[in-house]
């Protein structure tokens, strides 16, 4: 199933929570909405699941088979894990899951099988008869994820699925999401944890103050965000930092030792041209462009936006 968001805007009182956002998520893709608190991720997700309506623009769902737009997304077709989430604390795990499954219209027998399968996978079968309140926060989060997935939805929307999870459980959720992708499910999630998302998402949408600042595959997003390049260079003999920083393409040269430097360069610079310029100063033993984390690129982009 396709989810298309076309020029969607949403305002609350004096705040523009979502500003002219457009994106497309297809079956078998993981689309990650990234951004700090207040970036507009949750507002966008809440519109996609129909909890709120856009002020302008539209959200369209298309069937994967014939691309025809659907008038409404049936509750059986999607699973939603809200940011503000919880289940009935005084009821047992089974009661909660059965209730959600029945409301989703899953047949009793199918629901039981599905619940059992998911509980087994999440290693929570022996906790099934316990009230929710007796489970740890992480385990409760897993039960909530099961409640989102047990009806085998075609579209899964997860608002901050990693928050509150320890690294082990984060990895576990990651593997579940990868499995969903491999079965053709459309996964849309919002997160802060860029390092995690970088490893699995097909598409990234980076947001700030309601607007998209970059989107596409990881490589495309990098290309859109990278304004400066970092490199490390090791000379065979001692060199002065000033000798390097006078080069026009070098913005900054930070000495790490007498022979080793970290360089911040203009992104437009071709690496081989710079290498030739450095060789003119002294023989180069090592020349390695530094790959910047998405997190750092994002911060640079936001700061640049603030400064401009």
């Amino acid at each position, binding site marked *: 199933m396709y989810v298309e968001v076309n020029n969607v805007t949403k305002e609350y009182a004096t705040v523009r929570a979502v500003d002219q956002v457009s994106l497309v998520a297809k079956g078998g893709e993981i689309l990650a909405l990234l951004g700090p608190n207040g970036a507009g991720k949750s507002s966008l997700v809440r519109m996609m699941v129909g909890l709120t309506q856009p002020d302008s623009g539209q959200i369209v769902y298309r069937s994967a088979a014939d691309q025809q737009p659907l008038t409404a997304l049936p509750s059986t077709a999607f699973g939603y894990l809200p940011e503000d989430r919880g289940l009935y604390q005084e009821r047992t795990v089974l009661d909660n899951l059965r209730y959600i499954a029945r409301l*989703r219209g899953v047949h009793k027998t199918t629901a039981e099988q599905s619940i059992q399968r998911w509980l087994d996978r999440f290693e929570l079968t022996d906790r099934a008869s316990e009230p929710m309140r007796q489970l740890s926060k992480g385990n409760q989060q897993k039960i909530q994820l099961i409640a989102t997935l047990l009806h085998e939805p075609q579209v899964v929307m997860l608002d901050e699925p990693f928050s509150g999870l320890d690294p082990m459980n984060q990895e576990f959720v990651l593997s579940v999401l990868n499995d969903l992708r491999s079965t053709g499910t459309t996964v849309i999630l919002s997160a802060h944890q860029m390092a995690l998302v970088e490893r699995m998402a097909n598409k990234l949408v980076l947001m700030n103050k309601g607007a998209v600042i970059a989107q596409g595959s990881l490589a495309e997003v990098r290309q859109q965000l990278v304004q400066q390049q970092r490199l490390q260079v090791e000379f065979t003999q001692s060199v002065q930092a000033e000798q390097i920083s006078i080069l026009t393409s070098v913005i900054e040269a930070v000495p790490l030792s007498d022979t080793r430097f970290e360089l911040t360069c203009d992104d437009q610079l071709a690496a081989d041209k710079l290498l030739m310029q450095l060789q003119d100063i002294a023989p180069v033993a090592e020349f390695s462009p530094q790959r910047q984390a998405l997190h750092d690129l994002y911060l640079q982009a936001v700061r640049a936006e603030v400064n401009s």
Partner: protein
Amino acid sequence: MKHWRQVIRIGGFEFRRFFKWKQELFSLVLIGALFGVTAGWGVLKTALEETHTVAVVAPVTLPELANIKWQPVSDTTTALTELGENYSGVLRVSASPEEGYGAELWAANSSGWQDRMQAQLQAWLQQQKLEALPLDASQIALLNDPVRVSITVQRGEEETSRSASKVIPMLILVSIMVGVFGSFGLMMTAITQEKQQRVTEQLLTIIRPPEWIDGKILGITLHCLKSMATVLLIIVLVSLLMMVIEGRPLDFPSINWTVLGSTTVFAIVGLVMINALMAGFAATIDDPNHSGRTAMMLIPALFVGAGFGVMDNLQGILAQILSWFPLTSFAVMPLRIADGSVSWWEVLGSLLLLLLMTYTIRSAAIRLFSMGITMYGKEPSWRMMGRAFIGRR
């Protein structure tokens, strides 16, 4: 069809959410035990009470009284010196036409057995006085028979004592009151707990507010009806047991099925209306422990209170008005039906108005519910609520 399927699922869940077998049985056992202790308290108290020895100066032999031992003595002065040691009391009795009929008791300290003895001795001495008069047995029996003033209500071929005619309406009102208070507590818990446990957002993507509110109304109404039936059953069982213990004949007002049926219909529709109102209002409360609006949820108790207010004059104009007014009719009309002072077209008219009001309140409650259910950490203003209630954005 899908709407009602969801409503039944939600209603079933809400009912089970508050119905716990262990708790129900525990309540019944507790009420039974309380009744047992209350009923058997007198017997238990007498059995465990120590025997009190009372020194007596009397010209006659006194009757035997439970836990009291009469010790005849020659004079009270000597006996009084042993008061509190050998005797619990010293009693001087006069029982002759010349000296008069009476008794005086001196006791070391005040105690319950003295009141019991006083009452029994008074009755016995009164009997002695009557027997000393020159009267025959029939005259004494006549004097012993207390004067009764009774009121009988005659309506057509039916004739019931006024006290009996009040039993059924009182039972009806008490059970409706139980239902309304149950509704207040359960609906408040059901909705504010969901908000606090953050279940609402997930559910709102699965079910629509009308399905949700109708399901809640169904589940909580069923629960209230269960509570009403339980209370009625306990009252009946306790009354039966009291009759058996006291050796009275099993005298119950006969069941009038028309009254029972129409009362049940009014009670159910009334509870649905109250539950709809409660659901809409509860959704606007963020935290029941801190919200000033919680007290507003007691308003429906006033509707039932109207029933108590007019119970002594069910033929009066006020009772007639309140039995038609749709917010109070569910409590007042059953009383008038039980009283037998209402015609069929009045019942039907009042029921139709009640149904109309219930539908209107339910529709308004859905709008209130939709507005308030996803508000966390804040409550809508009265103005917003008013606009939602009347259907204006």
